Protein backbone atom coordinates (compact mmCIF):
# COMPACT_ATOMS: atom_id res chain seq x y z
CA UNK A 1 0.00 0.00 0.00
CA UNK A 2 1.28 3.43 -0.89
CA UNK A 3 2.34 5.45 2.13
CA UNK A 4 3.58 9.02 2.47
CA UNK A 5 6.40 10.19 4.73
CA UNK A 6 5.40 12.60 7.48
CA UNK A 7 6.78 13.79 10.81
CA UNK A 8 5.37 13.01 14.20
CA UNK A 9 5.89 15.65 16.88
CA UNK A 10 5.54 14.37 20.46
CA UNK A 11 5.13 16.94 23.19
CA UNK A 12 5.26 15.99 26.87
CA UNK A 13 4.12 19.01 28.77
CA UNK A 14 2.67 19.74 32.18
CA UNK A 15 -1.11 19.65 32.14
CA UNK A 16 -1.86 23.31 32.93
CA UNK A 17 -0.07 24.23 29.72
CA UNK A 18 -1.97 21.80 27.53
CA UNK A 19 -4.55 24.32 26.39
CA UNK A 20 -1.83 26.75 25.28
CA UNK A 21 -0.06 24.07 23.27
CA UNK A 22 -3.26 23.02 21.55
CA UNK A 23 -4.08 26.63 20.73
CA UNK A 24 -0.60 26.98 19.25
CA UNK A 25 -1.11 23.87 17.13
CA UNK A 26 -4.47 25.24 16.00
CA UNK A 27 -2.93 28.57 15.06
CA UNK A 28 -0.30 26.86 12.94
CA UNK A 29 -2.98 24.70 11.37
CA UNK A 30 -1.43 21.47 12.48
CA UNK A 31 -4.39 19.61 10.95
CA UNK A 32 -4.92 17.37 13.91
CA UNK A 33 -3.51 16.13 17.17
CA UNK A 34 -4.19 13.60 19.86
CA UNK A 35 -3.72 14.00 23.60
CA UNK A 36 -2.81 10.93 25.63
CA UNK A 37 -2.95 11.04 29.42
CA UNK A 38 0.23 10.12 31.21
CA UNK A 39 0.14 8.31 34.52
CA UNK A 40 3.50 9.07 36.02
CA UNK A 41 6.88 10.32 34.98
CA UNK A 42 10.21 11.78 35.87
CA UNK A 43 12.32 14.52 34.38
CA UNK A 44 14.67 17.29 35.43
CA UNK A 45 11.97 18.81 37.58
CA UNK A 46 11.33 15.73 39.63
CA UNK A 47 8.92 12.86 39.48
CA UNK A 48 5.15 12.83 39.63
CA UNK A 49 2.22 10.44 39.75
CA UNK A 50 -1.41 11.08 38.82
CA UNK A 51 -3.03 9.02 41.53
CA UNK A 52 -5.05 10.99 44.00
CA UNK A 53 -4.41 14.35 42.38
CA UNK A 54 -7.28 16.75 42.15
CA UNK A 55 -5.73 19.67 40.34
CA UNK A 56 -3.88 19.66 37.10
CA UNK A 57 -0.52 20.60 38.55
CA UNK A 58 1.94 17.75 38.86
CA UNK A 59 0.70 15.93 35.81
CA UNK A 60 2.11 15.72 32.34
CA UNK A 61 0.13 15.04 29.19
CA UNK A 62 1.49 13.75 25.94
CA UNK A 63 0.32 15.50 22.81
CA UNK A 64 1.23 14.18 19.40
CA UNK A 65 0.66 15.61 16.02
CA UNK A 66 1.41 14.21 12.58
CA UNK A 67 2.48 16.92 10.16
CA UNK A 68 4.18 17.35 6.86
CA UNK A 69 7.93 17.76 7.09
CA UNK A 70 7.60 21.20 5.55
CA UNK A 71 5.67 22.45 8.58
CA UNK A 72 7.84 21.05 11.33
CA UNK A 73 10.00 24.13 11.83
CA UNK A 74 7.06 26.47 11.65
CA UNK A 75 5.58 24.61 14.60
CA UNK A 76 8.73 23.82 16.55
CA UNK A 77 9.90 27.42 16.85
CA UNK A 78 6.90 28.84 18.72
CA UNK A 79 6.50 25.55 20.56
CA UNK A 80 10.03 25.80 21.84
CA UNK A 81 9.40 29.38 22.95
CA UNK A 82 6.31 28.23 24.80
CA UNK A 83 7.68 25.10 26.40
CA UNK A 84 11.19 26.29 27.22
CA UNK A 85 10.19 28.05 30.42
CA UNK A 86 7.93 25.21 31.51
CA UNK A 87 8.27 21.59 32.34
CA UNK A 88 8.33 19.61 29.11
CA UNK A 89 10.07 17.64 26.42
CA UNK A 90 9.55 17.65 22.64
CA UNK A 91 10.63 14.95 20.18
CA UNK A 92 10.27 14.56 16.43
CA UNK A 93 10.28 11.28 14.54
CA UNK A 94 9.54 9.79 11.13
CA UNK A 95 6.27 8.08 10.28
CA UNK A 96 4.40 7.11 7.15
CA UNK A 97 0.71 7.65 6.66
CA UNK A 98 -1.75 5.98 4.37
CA UNK A 99 -3.89 8.99 3.54
CA UNK A 100 -1.87 12.04 2.68
CA UNK A 101 -4.70 14.54 2.14
CA UNK A 102 -5.27 14.33 5.85
CA UNK A 103 -2.23 16.34 6.98
Amino acid at each position, binding site marked *: MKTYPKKRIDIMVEAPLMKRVLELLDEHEAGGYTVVPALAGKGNDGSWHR*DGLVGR*VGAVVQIFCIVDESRVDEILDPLFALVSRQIGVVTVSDVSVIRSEHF
Partner: protein
Amino acid sequence: MNSVLELAFANLTSPMILFFVLGLAAAFLKSDLNIPEAIAKGMALYLMMAIGFKGGAGVAEHGLDATLFLALATGALLSALLPLIAFRFLISTTGLSRVDAAAVAAHYGSISIVTFLAAVQVLNSAGIAYEGYMVAVAAAMETPAIVVALWMAKGRASSFNSATMREIAFNGSIVILIGSFIIGGVTGKEGLQSISAFIVDPFKGVLCLFLLDMGLIAGRGLLEGRRHFTPAVIGFGIYMPLVGASLGLAAAMLIGLSPGGTALLATLCASASYIAVPAAMRLALPEAKPSLYIPLSLGVTFPFNLSIGIPLYLSLATAVP
Protein backbone atom coordinates in the same frame (compact mmCIF):
# COMPACT_ATOMS: atom_id res chain seq x y z
CA MET B 1 -9.38 28.05 78.10
CA ASN B 2 -10.29 24.57 79.21
CA SER B 3 -12.89 24.28 76.53
CA VAL B 4 -10.32 25.25 73.91
CA LEU B 5 -8.17 22.33 74.87
CA GLU B 6 -11.16 20.06 74.91
CA LEU B 7 -12.18 21.28 71.50
CA ALA B 8 -8.66 20.87 70.19
CA PHE B 9 -8.48 17.38 71.59
CA ALA B 10 -11.87 16.40 70.23
CA ASN B 11 -10.73 17.74 66.89
CA LEU B 12 -7.43 15.89 66.95
CA THR B 13 -9.19 12.59 67.52
CA SER B 14 -11.93 13.15 64.97
CA PRO B 15 -12.14 10.67 62.10
CA MET B 16 -11.30 13.49 59.68
CA ILE B 17 -7.91 14.27 61.19
CA LEU B 18 -7.13 10.63 61.76
CA PHE B 19 -7.76 9.75 58.13
CA PHE B 20 -5.44 12.57 57.10
CA VAL B 21 -2.81 11.15 59.45
CA LEU B 22 -3.38 7.69 57.99
CA GLY B 23 -2.65 9.12 54.54
CA LEU B 24 0.53 10.77 55.79
CA ALA B 25 1.62 7.55 57.48
CA ALA B 26 0.95 5.49 54.36
CA ALA B 27 3.01 7.94 52.31
CA PHE B 28 5.91 7.87 54.77
CA LEU B 29 5.79 4.06 54.89
CA LYS B 30 5.93 4.14 51.08
CA SER B 31 2.76 2.09 50.87
CA ASP B 32 1.24 1.83 47.42
CA LEU B 33 -2.14 2.90 48.80
CA ASN B 34 -3.70 5.35 46.40
CA ILE B 35 -6.98 6.85 45.35
CA PRO B 36 -7.63 6.93 41.61
CA GLU B 37 -7.44 10.39 40.12
CA ALA B 38 -11.05 10.25 38.89
CA ILE B 39 -12.31 9.37 42.37
CA ALA B 40 -10.32 12.17 43.97
CA LYS B 41 -11.69 14.65 41.45
CA GLY B 42 -15.19 13.29 41.85
CA MET B 43 -15.00 13.73 45.62
CA ALA B 44 -13.69 17.28 45.22
CA LEU B 45 -16.62 18.11 42.95
CA TYR B 46 -19.04 16.52 45.38
CA LEU B 47 -17.67 18.44 48.35
CA MET B 48 -17.85 21.76 46.53
CA MET B 49 -21.32 21.10 45.18
CA ALA B 50 -22.53 20.15 48.65
CA ILE B 51 -20.96 23.02 50.54
CA GLY B 52 -22.10 25.52 47.93
CA PHE B 53 -25.65 24.23 47.93
CA LYS B 54 -25.91 24.14 51.70
CA GLY B 55 -24.57 27.67 51.90
CA GLY B 56 -27.13 28.89 49.41
CA ALA B 57 -29.97 27.09 51.15
CA GLY B 58 -28.81 28.64 54.41
CA VAL B 59 -29.02 32.10 52.90
CA ALA B 60 -32.46 31.32 51.49
CA GLU B 61 -33.65 30.34 54.93
CA HIS B 62 -32.19 33.20 56.92
CA GLY B 63 -32.56 35.88 54.32
CA LEU B 64 -29.99 38.09 52.72
CA ASP B 65 -28.65 41.06 54.56
CA ALA B 66 -26.18 43.80 53.88
CA THR B 67 -23.37 41.93 55.61
CA LEU B 68 -23.28 39.52 52.70
CA PHE B 69 -21.87 42.20 50.44
CA LEU B 70 -19.73 43.59 53.21
CA ALA B 71 -18.33 40.12 53.87
CA LEU B 72 -17.66 39.52 50.18
CA ALA B 73 -15.80 42.79 49.87
CA THR B 74 -13.86 42.17 53.08
CA GLY B 75 -12.87 38.70 51.93
CA ALA B 76 -11.67 39.96 48.56
CA LEU B 77 -9.73 42.74 50.26
CA LEU B 78 -8.06 40.36 52.69
CA SER B 79 -7.18 38.02 49.84
CA ALA B 80 -5.46 40.94 48.09
CA LEU B 81 -3.76 42.18 51.24
CA LEU B 82 -2.39 38.92 52.63
CA PRO B 83 0.01 38.22 49.73
CA LEU B 84 1.65 41.59 50.32
CA ILE B 85 2.33 40.69 53.93
CA ALA B 86 3.39 37.15 53.09
CA PHE B 87 5.75 38.42 50.40
CA ARG B 88 7.46 40.79 52.86
CA PHE B 89 7.96 38.00 55.39
CA LEU B 90 9.30 35.62 52.80
CA ILE B 91 11.77 38.06 51.27
CA SER B 92 13.13 39.14 54.63
CA THR B 93 13.36 35.73 56.30
CA THR B 94 13.67 32.88 53.83
CA GLY B 95 16.06 33.85 51.07
CA LEU B 96 13.60 32.67 48.44
CA SER B 97 13.82 34.31 45.03
CA ARG B 98 11.36 37.09 44.21
CA VAL B 99 9.42 34.82 41.93
CA ASP B 100 9.23 31.96 44.41
CA ALA B 101 8.24 34.36 47.17
CA ALA B 102 5.46 35.84 45.04
CA ALA B 103 4.18 32.39 44.15
CA VAL B 104 4.13 31.26 47.77
CA ALA B 105 2.45 34.53 48.77
CA ALA B 106 -0.34 33.90 46.25
CA HIS B 107 -1.11 30.59 47.92
CA TYR B 108 -1.45 32.15 51.36
CA GLY B 109 -3.65 34.97 50.15
CA SER B 110 -5.99 32.55 48.44
CA ILE B 111 -7.90 29.86 50.32
CA SER B 112 -8.23 26.13 50.77
CA ILE B 113 -11.79 24.95 50.49
CA VAL B 114 -11.06 21.71 52.35
CA THR B 115 -9.76 23.62 55.35
CA PHE B 116 -12.99 25.58 55.21
CA LEU B 117 -14.99 22.34 55.11
CA ALA B 118 -13.13 21.00 58.11
CA ALA B 119 -13.89 24.19 60.04
CA VAL B 120 -17.56 23.91 59.11
CA GLN B 121 -17.60 20.36 60.45
CA VAL B 122 -16.11 21.52 63.75
CA LEU B 123 -18.74 24.26 63.98
CA ASN B 124 -21.49 21.77 63.23
CA SER B 125 -20.38 19.32 65.89
CA ALA B 126 -20.03 22.15 68.39
CA GLY B 127 -23.50 23.34 67.40
CA ILE B 128 -22.31 26.85 66.51
CA ALA B 129 -24.23 28.74 63.83
CA TYR B 130 -22.58 30.68 60.99
CA GLU B 131 -23.59 32.72 57.96
CA GLY B 132 -24.52 30.48 55.04
CA TYR B 133 -22.96 32.89 52.60
CA MET B 134 -19.46 32.25 53.95
CA VAL B 135 -19.01 29.79 51.12
CA ALA B 136 -19.50 32.65 48.67
CA VAL B 137 -16.90 34.61 50.60
CA ALA B 138 -14.56 31.64 50.17
CA ALA B 139 -15.11 31.75 46.41
CA ALA B 140 -14.52 35.49 46.36
CA MET B 141 -11.18 35.02 48.13
CA GLU B 142 -9.77 32.58 45.58
CA THR B 143 -8.62 34.99 42.89
CA PRO B 144 -7.56 38.43 44.19
CA ALA B 145 -4.43 36.98 45.76
CA ILE B 146 -3.33 35.59 42.43
CA VAL B 147 -3.62 38.93 40.69
CA VAL B 148 -1.72 40.75 43.41
CA ALA B 149 1.04 38.16 43.53
CA LEU B 150 1.55 38.29 39.77
CA TRP B 151 1.76 42.04 39.98
CA MET B 152 4.41 41.74 42.73
CA ALA B 153 6.47 39.31 40.69
CA LYS B 154 6.59 42.05 38.04
CA GLY B 155 8.39 41.77 34.76
CA ARG B 156 7.45 38.16 34.96
CA ALA B 157 3.82 38.94 34.42
CA SER B 158 4.27 38.94 30.66
CA SER B 159 2.30 35.71 30.36
CA PHE B 160 -0.34 37.15 32.63
CA ASN B 161 -2.83 38.05 29.96
CA SER B 162 -6.57 38.20 29.63
CA ALA B 163 -6.85 34.55 28.64
CA THR B 164 -5.14 33.55 31.87
CA MET B 165 -7.41 35.88 33.86
CA ARG B 166 -10.46 34.38 32.22
CA GLU B 167 -9.31 30.86 33.02
CA ILE B 168 -8.71 31.83 36.62
CA ALA B 169 -12.04 33.61 36.98
CA PHE B 170 -14.11 30.79 35.50
CA ASN B 171 -12.08 27.90 36.82
CA GLY B 172 -14.10 24.82 37.61
CA SER B 173 -14.06 25.11 41.37
CA ILE B 174 -15.36 28.67 41.38
CA VAL B 175 -18.11 27.80 38.91
CA ILE B 176 -19.36 24.82 40.86
CA LEU B 177 -19.14 26.57 44.23
CA ILE B 178 -20.98 29.69 43.10
CA GLY B 179 -23.33 27.77 40.84
CA SER B 180 -24.38 25.42 43.62
CA PHE B 181 -24.64 28.33 46.01
CA ILE B 182 -27.10 30.05 43.69
CA ILE B 183 -29.07 26.86 43.10
CA GLY B 184 -29.21 26.30 46.83
CA GLY B 185 -30.42 29.87 47.25
CA VAL B 186 -33.11 29.51 44.59
CA THR B 187 -34.44 26.14 45.68
CA GLY B 188 -34.02 26.84 49.39
CA LYS B 189 -34.95 24.54 52.21
CA GLU B 190 -37.17 22.40 50.02
CA GLY B 191 -34.44 21.87 47.45
CA LEU B 192 -32.00 21.01 50.20
CA GLN B 193 -34.39 18.50 51.64
CA SER B 194 -34.94 16.79 48.32
CA ILE B 195 -31.24 16.06 47.86
CA SER B 196 -29.99 16.06 51.44
CA ALA B 197 -29.58 12.28 51.46
CA PHE B 198 -26.87 12.90 48.89
CA ILE B 199 -25.26 16.18 49.87
CA VAL B 200 -25.77 16.31 53.63
CA ASP B 201 -25.84 12.84 55.17
CA PRO B 202 -22.77 11.20 53.66
CA PHE B 203 -20.80 14.46 53.54
CA LYS B 204 -18.58 13.90 56.55
CA GLY B 205 -17.68 10.39 55.48
CA VAL B 206 -16.71 11.52 52.01
CA LEU B 207 -14.63 14.25 53.59
CA CYS B 208 -12.79 11.58 55.59
CA LEU B 209 -11.93 9.63 52.48
CA PHE B 210 -10.89 12.85 50.74
CA LEU B 211 -8.64 13.74 53.66
CA LEU B 212 -7.01 10.34 53.41
CA ASP B 213 -6.11 11.33 49.86
CA MET B 214 -4.89 14.74 50.98
CA GLY B 215 -2.68 13.01 53.53
CA LEU B 216 -1.21 10.75 50.87
CA ILE B 217 -0.49 13.68 48.55
CA ALA B 218 0.86 15.84 51.36
CA GLY B 219 3.14 13.06 52.61
CA ARG B 220 4.48 12.29 49.17
CA GLY B 221 4.93 16.00 48.46
CA LEU B 222 6.87 16.45 51.70
CA LEU B 223 9.19 13.59 50.81
CA GLU B 224 9.73 15.01 47.33
CA GLY B 225 10.11 18.66 48.39
CA ARG B 226 12.26 18.05 51.49
CA ARG B 227 15.25 19.84 50.05
CA HIS B 228 13.48 23.21 49.99
CA PHE B 229 12.40 23.02 53.60
CA THR B 230 14.64 25.24 55.67
CA PRO B 231 13.48 26.14 59.18
CA ALA B 232 12.62 29.63 57.95
CA VAL B 233 10.34 28.22 55.27
CA ILE B 234 8.65 25.78 57.63
CA GLY B 235 8.32 28.55 60.18
CA PHE B 236 6.53 30.68 57.60
CA GLY B 237 4.12 27.82 56.94
CA ILE B 238 3.11 27.97 60.59
CA TYR B 239 3.15 31.62 61.60
CA MET B 240 1.63 32.93 58.37
CA PRO B 241 -1.72 31.22 59.07
CA LEU B 242 -1.68 32.84 62.50
CA VAL B 243 -1.08 36.24 60.93
CA GLY B 244 -3.84 35.61 58.42
CA ALA B 245 -6.24 34.39 61.07
CA SER B 246 -5.61 37.45 63.24
CA LEU B 247 -6.47 39.77 60.39
CA GLY B 248 -9.48 37.66 59.57
CA LEU B 249 -10.71 37.76 63.17
CA ALA B 250 -10.29 41.50 63.39
CA ALA B 251 -12.04 42.12 60.08
CA ALA B 252 -14.88 39.77 60.93
CA MET B 253 -15.56 41.52 64.21
CA LEU B 254 -15.40 44.87 62.50
CA ILE B 255 -18.11 43.94 60.03
CA GLY B 256 -20.10 42.15 62.69
CA LEU B 257 -20.09 38.52 61.67
CA SER B 258 -21.45 35.93 64.07
CA PRO B 259 -18.88 34.01 66.15
CA GLY B 260 -19.22 31.08 63.75
CA GLY B 261 -18.76 33.29 60.72
CA THR B 262 -15.80 34.96 62.41
CA ALA B 263 -14.11 31.61 62.94
CA LEU B 264 -14.71 30.75 59.29
CA LEU B 265 -13.30 34.02 57.97
CA ALA B 266 -10.24 33.55 60.18
CA THR B 267 -9.87 30.00 58.85
CA LEU B 268 -10.13 31.19 55.26
CA CYS B 269 -7.44 33.81 55.84
CA ALA B 270 -5.26 31.24 57.58
CA SER B 271 -5.64 28.63 54.89
CA ALA B 272 -3.44 28.29 51.83
CA SER B 273 -4.56 27.11 48.40
CA TYR B 274 -3.15 23.95 46.88
CA ILE B 275 -5.36 23.36 43.88
CA ALA B 276 -6.42 26.53 42.08
CA VAL B 277 -3.37 28.70 42.77
CA PRO B 278 -0.73 26.14 41.78
CA ALA B 279 -2.42 25.76 38.40
CA ALA B 280 -2.42 29.52 37.88
CA MET B 281 1.23 29.75 38.95
CA ARG B 282 2.34 27.11 36.47
CA LEU B 283 0.85 29.22 33.73
CA ALA B 284 1.87 32.67 34.83
CA LEU B 285 5.01 32.14 36.93
CA PRO B 286 6.53 28.95 35.57
CA GLU B 287 9.93 29.73 37.09
CA ALA B 288 8.52 29.35 40.60
CA LYS B 289 9.04 25.90 42.05
CA PRO B 290 5.92 23.76 42.51
CA SER B 291 7.93 21.35 44.65
CA LEU B 292 8.25 24.23 47.12
CA TYR B 293 4.79 25.77 47.26
CA ILE B 294 2.61 22.69 47.06
CA PRO B 295 4.11 20.72 49.95
CA LEU B 296 4.46 23.90 52.03
CA SER B 297 0.77 24.61 51.65
CA LEU B 298 -0.49 21.03 51.80
CA GLY B 299 2.12 19.40 54.03
CA VAL B 300 2.75 22.13 56.60
CA THR B 301 -0.01 24.73 56.70
CA PHE B 302 -2.95 22.45 55.95
CA PRO B 303 -2.24 19.98 58.79
CA PHE B 304 -1.40 22.85 61.13
CA ASN B 305 -4.78 24.45 60.47
CA LEU B 306 -6.58 21.15 60.60
CA SER B 307 -5.18 20.12 63.96
CA ILE B 308 -4.36 23.26 65.94
CA GLY B 309 -5.46 26.22 63.88
CA ILE B 310 -9.19 25.63 63.55
CA PRO B 311 -9.90 24.99 67.26
CA LEU B 312 -7.73 27.99 68.11
CA TYR B 313 -9.49 30.36 65.72
CA LEU B 314 -12.84 29.08 66.88
CA SER B 315 -12.07 29.57 70.54
CA LEU B 316 -10.81 33.08 69.85
CA ALA B 317 -13.89 33.86 67.79
CA THR B 318 -16.22 32.65 70.53
CA ALA B 319 -14.16 34.07 73.41
CA VAL B 320 -14.86 37.67 72.49
CA PRO B 321 -18.33 38.48 73.77
